[in-house]
């Protein structure tokens, strides 16, 4: 009965396949680019150390850092990685949960947001580094204070993203759901959550990388284990290779978290592409 004219069709159910190698390279050339740049940078670093003959405590060579890594890996490195990972994980769980719940409430109720906004902004205008000593005084120098600093730093980006996301829900879709007599639960699961997800995941990306900063700042304030503790220790005894190893571990953790969010995005937002 209804007819679709040719010019209306923008969608092709089955796209013509690219030649295999072109499909592969267009898909993976960005993934190749990253390791190649990395190799280039390490080479540059090695050459710089060679050329200027820096002493190891100023700038150790890549080979020296690698040997340091191997000896630490045989020792207590993984314990410190584990401690920092634990702080990051707990901090993320707490910070993000709080951000989702509060963000949803503030996004839904403008009056609540008007009350809370000044405090949230004020709390964010103070650098976490400045609050961290207070947190340590209140919560001690154990795991709790690190988790608290991490939670605090991861909280804000996701909070703002959640508020914006909930706000961005199309009012016409809200009306549609109401005209279908959707329950509160259906409104949340079938409309608000999927509609806000792109924004929330954007916030999550920021939070995930900041989590590493939070854990290290917490550990700087006094700790007996963790990658931040290793950095502090290395500084004290001028063991620069150790600092490098710790930093690289932090970079790896941050990368892994970032990639995890990208993976989530690819899984949950496939409709966007």
């Amino acid at each position, binding site marked *: *009965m*209804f*007819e*679709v004219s040719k*010019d*209306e*069709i*923008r*969608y092709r*159910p089955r796209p013509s396949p690219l030649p295999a190698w072109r499909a592969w390279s267009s898909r993976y050339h960005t993934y190749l680019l990253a390791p190649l740049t990395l190799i280039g940078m390490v080479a540059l670093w090695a050459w710089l150390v060679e050329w200027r003959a820096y002493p190891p405590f100023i700038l150790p060579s890549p080979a020296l850092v690698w040997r340091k890594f191997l000896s630490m890996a045989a020792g207590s490195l993984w314990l410190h990685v584990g401690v920092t990972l634990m702080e990051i994980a707990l901090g993320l769980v707490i910070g993000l949960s709080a951000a989702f719940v509060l963000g949803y409430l503030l996004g839904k109720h403008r009056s609540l947001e008007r009350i809370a906004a000044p405090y949230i902004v004020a709390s964010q205008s103070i650098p976490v580094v400045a609050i961290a000593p207070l947190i340590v005084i209140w919560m001690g120098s154990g795991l709790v204070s690190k988790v608290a600093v991490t939670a605090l730093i991861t909280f804000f980006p996701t909070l703002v993203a959640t508020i914006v996301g909930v706000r961005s829900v*199309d009012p*016409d*879709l809200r*009306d*549609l*759901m*109401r*005209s*279908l*007599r*959707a329950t509160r639960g*259906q409104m949340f699961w*079938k*409309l608000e959550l*999927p*509609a806000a*997800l792109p924004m929330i995941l954007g916030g999550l990306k920021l939070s995930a990388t900041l989590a590493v900063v939070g854990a290290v700042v917490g550990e700087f304030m006094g700790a007996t284990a963790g990658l931040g503790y290793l950095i502090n220790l290395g500084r004290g005894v001028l063991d620069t290779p150790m600092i490098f190893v710790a930093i690289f571990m932090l970079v790896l953790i941050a990368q892994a978290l970032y990639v995890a969010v990208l993976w989530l995005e690819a899984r949950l*937002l496939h*409709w*966007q592409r």
Partner: protein
Amino acid sequence: MAVFVAEQISKRFVDGPRPLQALLPVSFEVEAGEIVCLVGPSGSGKSTLLRIMGGLIEPDSGAMWFEGELHHAPNTAIGFVFQKTNLMPWRTVLQNVLLPIEIQHKKVTDADRAHAEALLATMGLKEFEHAYPRQLSGGMNQRVVLARTLMQRPRLLLMDEPFGQLDALTRERLNLELLRLQAAQKITIFMVTHSIPEAVLLADRIFVLSERPGRLIAQVAVSLPRPRTLAMMGAPAFGEIAMQVRRWIGETPDFDDSTQNSRAVETLD
């Protein structure tokens, strides 16, 4: 029998910078199987009236009856097609069409899926079931909206300028298809439109709202035979009814000029 009765419905918005009387008390009846088109200048309260009829906002005064029962909240026997295409971009066409079933029955049976696929097929969208809305044109998406609304098997269809964002040709085609569908399924339609020719082409009666605050100033009967065709738009009776409606509205500049539509008729027939 009147499917829908409105008695002294009025609305005043008080949440804006200053209170705004959108709708003065209006009363009307809509008969079963009838098509009523509502026209009026911008801001005359057409959308507001429709949203009140759909139970989406509360009127300040008056009462409504749907199929003989007092009506004040959304009812799934009343389908709503909004001004803007409101599909969920994260759902495929088929998933969008199945939404009313998911909401009402919590789960989707094979029969529902077959029904949805059949509806999409009659809309000429068979091979687009698994496409996402952004991959389709405006006209196709508005058909998906129509299919989604029909999925809930409405007995009354409220439509707010449903094809207003489409080009004139697509719009005419969809109007004719809507007429056929309405005749086949005996649905009652209450449609807001911006275009007088469209109203005359579709309606059994045309309701005219005045400038804000909206009052129901006329109910013009359209005595053209059914089924309606685009060729009728050239008939003298068509022009007379259009003129009559236009006189009621007055010289409101933001109305579609009928010349544009009569040109479309020439190119089509």
